């Protein structure tokens, strides 16, 4: 057994478990419906659940994440059978439906599955002990090696990597979905997602809708997890803290996202949903049970975002090193604070809006049913109150990464530190006032349009401040361009394109024309790639040595960049081009007479090139863990505290605390100093005196 590669074993069990689950599902389906349905939902649902659990069983054995997944399956079935049993007792209600369980049974089962996962994985262990009146130690020691990433660890560095890897997994799943429907769009007419196509109770066009919707939401969740990943890993290091303010809640916030991922995949197989990730009623009231899985998954993943950002704010306010005043905070920390303020508060509104639809479906509450006095536009207001600021949750940390890395590679002070710091908060606050610009065509009160147009245009002001500062920082710098810097430059260019294509959408008259076209799709992908994806890759290339002690391959990093950037630019230009000429978004087919066939083919090829470049990145990432060039020192020649100690980072971060003695970004100024490690004797006496002062508590 020792000699088998755990990943191989996991993959073997994945196939085996999937097959067994598929067989169980087929059998159940046969019992309930009386016919064998080889492409049905029930068999696929069981296959997905068992395949996941078996994979991790093979990799890791029955503990940590495997235990969580098994508990989730058991909890889900128990919950669903419980509701089915009640329905059987009450009588008069249908017990088993098209998807084996009835809709209320699936909803309750999914919810109890999430709670069971959290118990099973052990994310609630310490709190349960507290409730029983037992005390638990603040820090558990993690074993060395890769195994600590599969169970509940409270170390922020482990959690940061867990988040990042999960985000990369979701990116590849969401990207695969995009490739599938992009292939369908390469030519007009239906090629393989035809009306006779039948999978998971969906026809081809319905499958297109489900994949398109899931591409949206899985990318969004992966971005949220990626944001949490970088912030979790980097912020405590930048602050000089040993860990986050609430390590257990930090672990909880990560682990609650895992069952959410399972629910997303279940929504695909349980009939899917065709509303797009926005889930507007009344369509979302009529969609299959997959819609409910989607709502629950977003709701669950939302808690990850809320609790994670709560932790970030508390950490920034309470855990800073000595001398780190507000105006000496690293700029990335400012960005993390701004993004967390939005995620902490606004996320509740998307949860609420989805809950209301959920209850409308379950109990017949008429919130958004116009026929019964409800108001569908109310949903859009509640939904966009989060979902617009959400894009600032995505991009603010990315813009923070740009500002953080630029001075390192330009060897010059960051231009206008205060303005950059305040512009992050400015974007966050203005971001709360712009949501209804998504609804210019929705039939809301017309007098609301103009104020929302102006508030939207106002966002360009703090964003412009950032661009001004970046250009001024680069101006006359001694620029070197290793892979992280390439991605930073790419981010600035792509985000500029995304930014410039934004104000046309904000202008009401133009928006009435542009609404729901590929122009918007192109604009959105530009902002998110520029604001998140490029900086995310830059951050991974930049901080990778800090986590592993090795650096990623420079040559393949450059290949990744030079393959991805041109393909991406062509992709979004093409999208905007056909959008302006009338290509609708979210639609499986288009009229050949429009003459978009050639452009769509180019877009599809570009999408595959981007996927190839990301594949190169993945191989580079995993290969370099063991085989990368050793990089234990300050390889980027950074002033930041985490680079002043050897890599990889020690378990409890800094053995000797530091204090801040200067400005963070004074690169190239002779004699300037940012941090100073408190020398040993000083440190001992200082702690002794503070202990003496506060002991009488």
């Amino acid at each position, binding site marked *: 057994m020792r000699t088998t590669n755990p990943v191989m074993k996991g993959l073997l069990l994945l196939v085996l478990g999937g097959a067994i689950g598929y067989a169980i599902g087929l059998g159940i389906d046969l019992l309930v419906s009386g016919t064998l349905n080889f492409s049905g939902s029930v068999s696929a649902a069981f296959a997905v659940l068992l395949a996941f659990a078996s994979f991790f069983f093979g990799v890791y054995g029955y503990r940590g994440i495997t235990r969580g997944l098994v508990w989730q399956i058991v909890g889900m079935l128990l919950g669903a059978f419980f509701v089915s049993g009640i329905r059987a007792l009450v009588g008069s209600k249908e017990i088993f439906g098209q998807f084996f369980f009835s809709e209320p049974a699936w909803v309750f089962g999914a919810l109890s599955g999430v709670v069971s996962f959290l118990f099973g994985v052990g994310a609630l262990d310490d709190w349960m002990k507290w*409730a029983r*009146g037992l005390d638990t130690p603040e820090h558990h020691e993690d074993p060395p090696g890769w195994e600590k990433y599969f169970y509940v660890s409270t170390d922020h560095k482990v959690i940061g990597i867990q988040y990042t890897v999960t985000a990369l997994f979701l990116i590849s799943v969401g990207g695969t979905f995009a490739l599938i429907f992009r292939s369908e769009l390469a030519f007009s007419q239906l090629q393989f997602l035809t009306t006779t196509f039948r999978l998971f109770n969906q026809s081809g066009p319905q499958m297109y809708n489900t994949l398109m919707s899931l591409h949206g939401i899985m990318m969004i969740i992966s971005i949220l997890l990626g944001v949490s990943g970088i912030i979790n890993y980097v912020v405590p290091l930048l602050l000089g803290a040993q860990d986050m*303010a*609430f390590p257990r*809640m930090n672990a909880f916030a990560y682990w609650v996202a895992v069952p959410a991922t399972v629910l997303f995949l279940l929504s695909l197989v349980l009939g899917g949903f065709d509303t797009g990730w926005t889930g507007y009623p009344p369509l979302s009231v009529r969609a299959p049970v997959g819609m409910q899985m989607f709502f629950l998954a977003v709701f669950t993943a939302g808690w990850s975002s*809320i609790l994670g950002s*709560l*932790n970030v*704010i*508390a950490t920034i*306010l*309470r*855990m800073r090193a000595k001398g780190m005043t507000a105006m000496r905070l690293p700029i990335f920390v400012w960005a993390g604070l701004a993004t967390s303020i939005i995620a*902490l*508060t*606004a*996320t*509740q*509104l998307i*949860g*609420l*809006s989805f809950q*209301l639809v959920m*209850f*409308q479906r379950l*109990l*017949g*509450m*008429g*919130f958004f049913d116009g026929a*019964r*006095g*409800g*108001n569908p536009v*109310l949903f859009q*207001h*509640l939904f966009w*109150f989060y979902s617009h600021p959400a894009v600032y949750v995505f991009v603010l940390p990315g813009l923070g990464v740009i500002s953080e890395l630029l001075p390192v590679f330009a060897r010059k002070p960051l231009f206008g530190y205060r303005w950059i710091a305040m512009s992050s908060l400015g974007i966050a606050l203005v971001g709360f006032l712009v949501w209804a610009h998504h609804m210019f065509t929705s039939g809301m009160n017309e007098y609301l349009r103009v104020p929302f147009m102006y508030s939207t245009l106002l966002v360009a002001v703090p964003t412009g401040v950032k661009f001004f500062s970046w250009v001024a920082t680069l101006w006359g710098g001694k620029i070197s361009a290793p892979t992280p810097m390439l991605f930073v430059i790419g981010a600035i260019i792509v985000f500029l394109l995304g930014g410039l294509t934004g104000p046309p959408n904000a202008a009401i008259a133009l928006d009435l024309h542009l609404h729901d076209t590929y122009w918007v799709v192109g604009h959105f992908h530009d902002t998110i790639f520029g604001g998140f994806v490029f900086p995310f890759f830059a951050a991974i290339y930049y901080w990778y040595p800090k986590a592993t002690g090795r650096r990623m391959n420079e040559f393949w990093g450059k290949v990744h960049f030079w393959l991805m950037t041109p393909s991406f630019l062509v992709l979004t230009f093409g999208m905007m081009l056909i959008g302006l000429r009338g290509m609708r978004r979210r639609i499986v087919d288009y009229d050949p007479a429009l003459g978009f066939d050639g452009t769509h083919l180019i877009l599809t090829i570009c999408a595959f090139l981007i996927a190839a470049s990301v594949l190169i990145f993945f191989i580079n990432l995993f290969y370099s863990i063991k085989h990368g060039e050793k990089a234990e020192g300050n390889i980027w020649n950074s002033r930041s505290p985490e680079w002043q100690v050897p890599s990889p980072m020690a378990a409890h971060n800094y053995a000797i605390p530091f204090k801040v003695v200067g400005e963070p970004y004074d690169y190239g100024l002779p004699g300037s100093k940012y941090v100073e490690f408190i020398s040993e004797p000083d440190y001992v006496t200082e702690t002794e005196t*503070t*202990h003496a*002062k*506060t002991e009488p*508590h």
Partner: protein
Amino acid sequence: MIHTLDNKSLLNQGIIIFAYLAVLTMLEYFVAVAFDAVPILVVVAAIKAALVAYYFMHIYKLNLESHVEDEHSYAYKAATNRLGLWLFLVSDSFVFGGLMVARINLLGMTRPHLNQLLGLFVTAVLLISSFFMNRGETMMHNGDREGFLKNTMITFFLGLAFLLGVVLIEWHTVPAIAEPILHLFGEAPGTEPLTPSAGPAGAVFFMMTGMHAFHVLTGLILLAIVWRNGRKGLYDEKQYPVEAAAVYWHFVDLVWIFFYPALYLIGSLT
């Protein structure tokens, strides 16, 4: 400065604040019944909320104990936890705010058909429970464990009474219990009860009270845990959990300060 008062005066302060809150609640009720004056109701609710946030939830403590130097001391950690709890409450209040927006959007200046007297009654129960919670917390602070346990127990049962009042009677889940009691509060027999699927009024009422009842339930669980561990003497020294449970309980009350007029008092019957 309030927080420098001695223990005896702190208990007296609780009584005075409760008296203010009770008078304001009565005032609110009579203003609403006598004439339809929404601005007055908003002002009264804001004053009540401010009193609860300051005197019962001690919002000023956020600033008070945050400057402890030693990062490993209990006081420092308690101050961090306090900040975390308040951030959570801020986040949570966006849910209730969203529900309030839904209520205003869907119902406007009308209100669901509910028994106003019963509403006043359950509101009073919750308010009194907050009074006892404050008393219990203050007593624990004084080192009076027995007093703390007694008052927390009273709080728990008043909270339970509120929860059952809403779920059994207001929701009409068990007509055999609900009907006689509603009759006692002057409801004509045979009145059609509100149901979740009865249009926006029913939807809003059940969603708002449901979300609030869920928070009451979690608050009750926290109170039970704190009572049980308090009896073992766990909080004689480290008292932050008591404060946390109390602040959460008062938050539930704070939400009801706004939900009660929004559901029972504002506007006219449809």
